[in-house]
C-alpha cells in the first residue's frame, strides 16, 4: 500500500511541477571560458524579470559546432564566444538574426572589421609571446624585438608555442606569423623556428604551466605564446603581493594577433525580444566594465573602464596583426594542415 502511495505522490508531483513551470528562461550558449560577475547577471534578470541560463559548451570551436549541429532546433537564444578565426564559418552557416544593439556607436574602431550585423563584437584581446623577465636579466640576454629575432641561435630552445590544430592561441599565433610573412613566406619562418628548437605543446595549460619558466610551473622555456593580459593576471593572482609583473609581452609590429569575440542572436530564438535586450546589455558599460577582470580581455565599449592592473602591467601592441576574416576562412584548413605537415615529420 505504501509503495502505491509513493507512486501516486511522485506522479502528482510531476504533474504539478510541469504545470507550474516557471516562465521560459533566456538561454545563452557560451564557451567554457566565459566568466562574469553574479551581480551583473542578476541586475539584468531583475530588470527584465527573466531567468538567464548559461549553456557552457566546450571550447570556442565546439561551441560553434554545437550551434551549427542544432541549427534546425536551436537550444539557445544567444550565442557568445565566436572569435574572428571562426567568424566566417559562423556567418556562412547563416546562424544569426541581423541585429544592431544599442551602444554600437560606442565601439572602439579597431574591432569593426566585417560587414553586416549578424554578430556583434563584445570583447577583444591580443595573443602575444610572454617572456620570463628574471631569466632574461639573469642571462643578460636582449629581449627579441621581431619575429626574425626569434630565429637567432641565442634563443635556441627558449620558446614554447601551441599546436594551431588543437589550441586557439596557437592558431592566433600562426595567423600572426602569416600576417608578417604572408601566406607564401610563413612556412619558411616556421622551418627556421623548428631548426631553432621551438617547443610545441598541444594546449595553453601545458605550455604555460609546464613549459614556461615565468609562472607557477617553473618549466624550461622562458618564452611562451599566451595573452597580452597574462602579465597583469600574474600580478592579480600572485601568491604574495607584487610590485611588478614577473612576465611581459613582446609587442613588436605584427607580433600580437588581435582576437575578437562576438555574440549574436540565434535564428529561431524563442525569446527574440529579450535576446535583443541582452545583446544591448552586453554592450552596456555595466557589463563591459565587468569583462576585463573576469575574462582577461579588453572591453569593446570605449566608455568602459580599463582596470589599473591592465594599464600598468599589460602592454598594448602599437601595430597588432590583423588578417582579413575571409582570407582566414578560405585558407584556415590549408594553413593548419601545412603547419602540421612540417611538425609531424
Amino acid at each position: 500500500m505504501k509503495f502505491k502511495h509513493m507512486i501516486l505522490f511522485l506522479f502528482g508531483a510531476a504533474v504539478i511541477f510541469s504545470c507550474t513551470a516557471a516562465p521560459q528562461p533566456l538561454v545563452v550558449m557560451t564557451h567554457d571560458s566565459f566568466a562574469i560577475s553574479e551581480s551583473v547577471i542578476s541586475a539584468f534578470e531583475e530588470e527584465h524579470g527573466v531567468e538567464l541560463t548559461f549553456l557552457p559548451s566546450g571550447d570556442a570551436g565546439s561551441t560553434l559546432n554545437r550551434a551549427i549541429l542544432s541549427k534546425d532546433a536551436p537550444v539557445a537564444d544567444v550565442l557568445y564566444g565566436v572569435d574572428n578565426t571562426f567568424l566566417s564559418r559562423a556567418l556562412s552557416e547563416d546562424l544569426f538574426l541581423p541585429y544592431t544593439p544599442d551602444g554600437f556607436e560606442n565601439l572602439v574602431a579597431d574591432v569593426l572589421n566585417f560587414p553586416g550585423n549578424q554578430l556583434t563584437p563584445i570583447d577583444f584581446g591580443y595573443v602575444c609571446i610572454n617572456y620570463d623577465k628574471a631569466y632574461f636579466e639573469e642571462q643578460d640576454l636582449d629581449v627579441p624585438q621581431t619575429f626574425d629575432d626569434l630565429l637567432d641561435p641565442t634563443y635556441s630552445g627558449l620558446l614554447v608555442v601551441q599546436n594551431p590544430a588543437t589550441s586557439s592561441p596557437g592558431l592566433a599565433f600562426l595567423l600572426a606569423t602569416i600576417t608578417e610573412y604572408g601566406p607564401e613566406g610563413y612556412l619558411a619562418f616556421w622551418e627556421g623556428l623548428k631548426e631553432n628548437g621551438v617547443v610545441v605543446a598541444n594546449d595553453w595549460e601545458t605550455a604555460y604551466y609546464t613549459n614556461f619558466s615565468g609562472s607557477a610551473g617553473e618549466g624550461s622555456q622562458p618564452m611562451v605564446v599566451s595573452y597580452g593580459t597574462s602579465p597583469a593576471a600574474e600580478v592579480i593572482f600572485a601568491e604574495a603581493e607584487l610590485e611588478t609583473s614577473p612576465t611581459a609581452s613582446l609587442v613588436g609590429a605584427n607580433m600580437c594577433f588581435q582576437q575578437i569575440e562576438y555574440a549574436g542572436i540565434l535564428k529561431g530564438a524563442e525569446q527574440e525580444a529579450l535576446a535583443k535586450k541582452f545583446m544591448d546589455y552586453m554592450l552596456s558599460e555595466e557589463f563591459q566594465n565587468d569583462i576585463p577582470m573576469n575574462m582577461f580581455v579588453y572591453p569593446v565599449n570605449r566608455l568602459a573602464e580599463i582596470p589599473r592592473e591592465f594599464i600598468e602591467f599589460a602592454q598594448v601592441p602599437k601595430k597588432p596583426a590583423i588578417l582579413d576574416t575571409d582570407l582566414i576562412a578560405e585558407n584556415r584548413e590549408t594553413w593548419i594542415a601545412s603547419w602540421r605537415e612540417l611538425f609531424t615529420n
Partner: protein
Amino acid sequence: MARIVHQLMAIRTKDRLNRLVLLIPVLFLLSFYFFPMIKIAYRSLMQTDSLFALKGENMRIAWRSIRFSFLQAFLSTVITACLGVPAAYLFGRFIFPGRKIMRLISTLPFILPTVVVAAAFNALVGKNGWINLFLMRFFDLSQAPIQLFGTLGAILLAHVFYNTSIFIRVVGTAWERLDTNTEDAARVLSASPWQTFKKVTFPLLLPSILSAVLLVFLFDFTSFGVILLMGGAQFATIEVEIYIQTTQFLNLRLAGLLSLIQLFFSIITSLISKRLDNAPFVPIIPASIEKALRKPDTRRKKIFVFFINGILVILIAMPLGALILRSVLTSENIGSYGTLDFSLANYQRIFVNERDALFFVPPFTALRNSILFALAAMAISIIMAICVAVGSSWSSRAGKIMDVFVMLPLGTSAVTLGLGFLLAFSASRAMVAYFPVLIPVAHSLIALPIVVRIIQPALQAIPSNQHDAAITLGVPYARLWWKLDLPMIKKPLITAAIYAFAVSLGEFGATTFLSRPEIPTLPVAIFRYIGLPGQENYGKAMAMAVILLLACTAGFVAIENLQDIPVRE
C-alpha cells in the same frame, strides 16, 4: 520420472527468466549507445560540403594516426603488462605490511585528469622538478638530466601510471581466488615452479589476464588526453585526429570515417581476445583468501615483494605525493632546494569567491555533484553488468554477442559519442534542461565494459552443479541468486564498484566529453582554475585535485569496507 520433468521445468524457467533479464542491458545500450551513434552517423552522411571530400591528403593523415595508435598502444600495453602481471602476483599471493594502502594507491591515478597528472610529473621530473634538482645537485650537473615532456616515453609512462591498477585489480583478484591446493598438488607431483605456473596457474588466470590486456589496450588505443598533454604536436592517435577534424574543421565525414576505423579495430581486438580465451572453462570454488595469501618466506620472495613495491612507489606513489606536496607549497618554493614553507593557502582560497564570479564553484558543491554522479553511475553499471552476466548465461552465443556489444563504448570515439549525445538528447530546450541527468548514464556506459569484465568471469566460475542441485531442491531462482551467487562474487563486485566509481569521479577518458559544466564537478572546477594564468589559479587547481584524490580515497575505503559486512549464510 516426475522428478526429472520437474527439474527440467525448473531449469527452463531459469533460462526464460535469464532472457528477460538480458533485455534490460540490451535496451540500455540501444537507447544510450546505438541511438546517439545512429544520429551522428546520419548527420555525418548528410554533410555534403565539397570542401570536406575525402582527399588523398586526408587519407595520409588518417593512415598516420592509425599507425601511431597501434604503435603506442602496443608498446604501452606490453610495458603495463610487464609490470602489471608481477604486481598482480604480488597482491594475489602475498601478505606484507602496507598491502592494503599500496593497492589503494595504485588505483588512484585512474581518477586524475590528465592535466593534473602532467602537473604532478612536472613537479617531480620537470626541469625544476624535485628529482631533477636532486640529480643535478648530487651529480653536479648543469642541465636537468631527465627531459620527459614531448616524447613517446612520456606517453608510455603516463599510460603505465594510469593502467597498471587494472592488472592489479583484475588479475590480482583472480589470483587471490585461485585455490592454492591445485598448485600444491602440482608441486607434490614434482612439477617445477615454472611448470606449475605454465600448466596450472597461467591457464586458470588466462581469462582475467586477457580481460586486463584487452581493457588496457583499448584505453591506450583510444587515448586522448595523455597524447595531447604529455606528447606534443608530433603525436596524434585516431582519437586526437577525430577531435581535430571535428572541432577545428567540422569535417564530420573524415571524423566519421576515423571513428568507424577505430571502432572496427576495437571490435577485432575484442574478438581476438575472446578467441584466445577458448580454453575449456574450469569452474572452481574460490579459495578462502586467508589460505591464498602467504607471507614471503624465502629470500627470493622477499626480494620480489620489495622490488615490485619499489617500482610501484616510484611510478605511482611518488607522482601522487608530488601533487600533494605541490598543493601545500607556494610557487616560491619550486625550483629551490632549501627549506620548504608549507601553507594551506591554496585550500583556503578555493572557498572564497573573491570576484563575485557567476561560475564560482564552491568546493563542497563540486564534491557533492561529483559523488552523486559517481554513485549513480556505479549503481547503473553494476546493475547492468549483473544483468549481462546472469542474462547471457543461458546460451554461449548470446554471451559472446553481448560481450562484444558491451565493449563497444570503450572502442568508440569519445568525441563522436559526445556529439551523438548532444544530437540525440539535447535536441530541444526541454531536453537540454534534463541533459545533466544523462551524465551518470554516459559515465556508466564507459564503466560498463570494465565492470562486466570483472563480474562475468567470477559468475561463470561458480560451479553449475551447485545451482542445479539447489534448483532440484526447489529453491526459487531469485533466492538462490541472493544466497549462493551473490556471496560468492562479493569481492569482484566490490572491485567493479570501485572502478565504476573512479571512472565517473575522475571523468576518465571518454567521459570528459560527456560531462557538461552546467553542474560543476571537481574536474570541471580544476579546469576552470588551470585555464587562467597566475600562481594562485595554479595553486587552486592543485588543491582541488588533492580534494578529488581524497574524495576518491574515501570512496574506495568505504566500498572496500562493504566486504566486511557479513552476508547471512
